[in-house]
């Protein structure tokens, strides 16, 4: 009698195996190779260092430098992380240590919903609603309060437009709070309750337990959450496309329009008319891919380290 099962067995194994290798290895590799291949013209013309350090982005004269975009991406991400980090840790503390159980579920659901709202909605709301509030209320207020202080005042110079670094970073920070808060919350949940209880037994207050037991224990998880959200913020496109203003310059104050890698890609891909222009855009996406890949791998390693320690 002919036995089908062993053949199905082998087939299943290799068939599933192919897709597993495809998803984890071939697929990222294809992305890298295609971006690399398409950006060959720009790589030949500008090289690596010149492309990264040149500040001119002029499609008419075909001179392309990525510094304004890279600087814009890094600045907006950095400010967003600074705003989001303490708040996410606060939310995680509230959820794990403070909230009664009925409120806990509600807050967790709300934070998850905040993560589920599509980025275009953030962008649209930011552009039509928040930018106006920022222009008319918040930014003039910040200017009058912080303007006279030397150094800090300079950050708030210029005409408040609402479409600038500050608004972009604020919206970005709202978008990454859910990711950061959920990673930090999961890390906090990993702390064995024996450790917390022993600290309580010594007479520590809740805050001392959090500060001296929970946070040191979960440091690598918190760092992983921070870096993970950095990776998210770097690649955020639509919200930033509405709010950045798309001016290829390195912003000197928080109230100036700027651009990021993703905004440049979103706005210019459809209008790239020469091969070199298109190739430079692919070069930009290659840089974005590499930066975010490295950052995300770092985040992953940190979270894995925490999990390993917990398993021991």
């Amino acid at each position: 009698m002919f036995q089908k099962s062993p053949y199905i067995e082998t087939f299943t194994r290799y068939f599933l195996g192919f897709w597993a290798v495809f998803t984890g290895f071939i697929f990222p590799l294809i992305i890298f190779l295609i971006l690399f291949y398409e950006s060959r013209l720009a790589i030949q013309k500008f090289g690596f260092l010149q492309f990264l350090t040149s500040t001119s982005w002029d499609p008419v004269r075909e001179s392309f430098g990525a510094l304004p975009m890279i600087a814009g991406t890094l600045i907006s991400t950095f400010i967003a992380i600074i705003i989001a980090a303490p708040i996410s840790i606060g939310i995680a503390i509230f959820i794990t240590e403070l909230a009664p159980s009925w409120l806990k579920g509600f807050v967790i659901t709300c934070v998850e919903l905040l993560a589920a709202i599509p980025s275009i909605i953030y962008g649209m709301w930011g552009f039509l609603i928040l930018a106006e509030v920022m222009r008319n209320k918040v930014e003039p207020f910040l200017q009058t309060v912080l303007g006279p202080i030397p150094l800090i005042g300079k950050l708030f110079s210029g005409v408040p437009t609402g479409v600038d670094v500050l608004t972009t970073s604020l919206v970005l920070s709202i978008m990454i709070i859910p990711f950061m808060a959920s990673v930090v919350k999961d890390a906090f949940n990993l702390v064995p309750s024996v450790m917390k209880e022993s600290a309580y037994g010594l007479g520590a207050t809740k805050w001392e337990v959090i500060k001296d037991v929970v946070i040191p224990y979960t440091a690598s998880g918190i760092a992983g959450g921070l870096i993970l959200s950095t990776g998210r913020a770097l690649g955020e496109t639509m919200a930033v496309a509405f709010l950045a203003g798309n001016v290829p310059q390195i912003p000197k104050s928080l109230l100036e329009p700027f651009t990021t890698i993703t905004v440049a890609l979103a706005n210019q891909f459809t209008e790239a008319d020469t091969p070199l222009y298109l190739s430079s855009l692919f070069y930009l996406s290659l840089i974005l891919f590499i930066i975010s890949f490295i950052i995300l791998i770092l985040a992953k390693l940190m979270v894995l380290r925490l999990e390993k320690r917990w398993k021991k």
Partner: protein
Amino acid sequence: MEKIRQLKRKFLNKLMLFLSLLAALYGLFWLFWILGVLCFNGFKYLSIELFTQDAGPPGLNIGGLRHAFVGHLIITILSTIIGIPIGLFAGIYYAEYGRNSKFFYVLKNITDVMVSTPSIIMGAVMYALLVIPLKHFNALAGALALAMLMVPVICVTTYEMLILVPFTLREAAYALGAYKWQIIKDIVLRSAKVGILTGIILGVARISGETAPLLFTAFSNNYLSFDIFKPMASLTVTIFNYTMSPYEYWHNQAWAASFCLTFFILILSLIAKFLIHYGNIFKNKR
């Protein structure tokens, strides 16, 4: 002296806990602001014409978004059909065959990283693969870009759901002489089906709100189109274009469209959350 120190500690404790309460309120504040504005404007501008008419000429107060709703549906369904099997296959392999292999452990973590890759990169890749050779924007490229975004999400959730299935269940089947493919089909997938469904719902929720990969793959148009080798309008790209336009009427339509889209996605997320919860209760009872 001791008393003052203790008061200080107690005060600091209260202060920090109060600050963490404020942080939670801060998060809720933005959520309710965004959803509130969305509901208010969305309800106000929702109309029958939105679903029954195609785009009107710019500047005139006529027209709807039927073409965008239909296009969005086509692109989403197409990418779901392509994305789900690949993600499922990979996830099953990682959980069932690759669990003790270092190589597949690394691949699984790379897949984890791919979940957070900037979505616009997928658009750029598909632009190179499908738009340049075909010489014009097409909906197929958009659908494939979204499918590529979806694969890692489904793969990771499938993996996580499958490793929750107790190993004793598999061993029982092995003892009866079952083949591995029979175990996967009849034991593992059957007991993890709620979890896998959750993963699929999350994947659909993730891609239906994406704009960036569609901007220069599916592009946009202003009429009803079913040809996947031609540009096709999607809700998200249309919202982007309409919001950036100077016309009040288009802004209003963008609000209404965002309202529909957001609540579709939020409901999907809530269903997924409910399913996870329900699945856990089910497991504990057994």
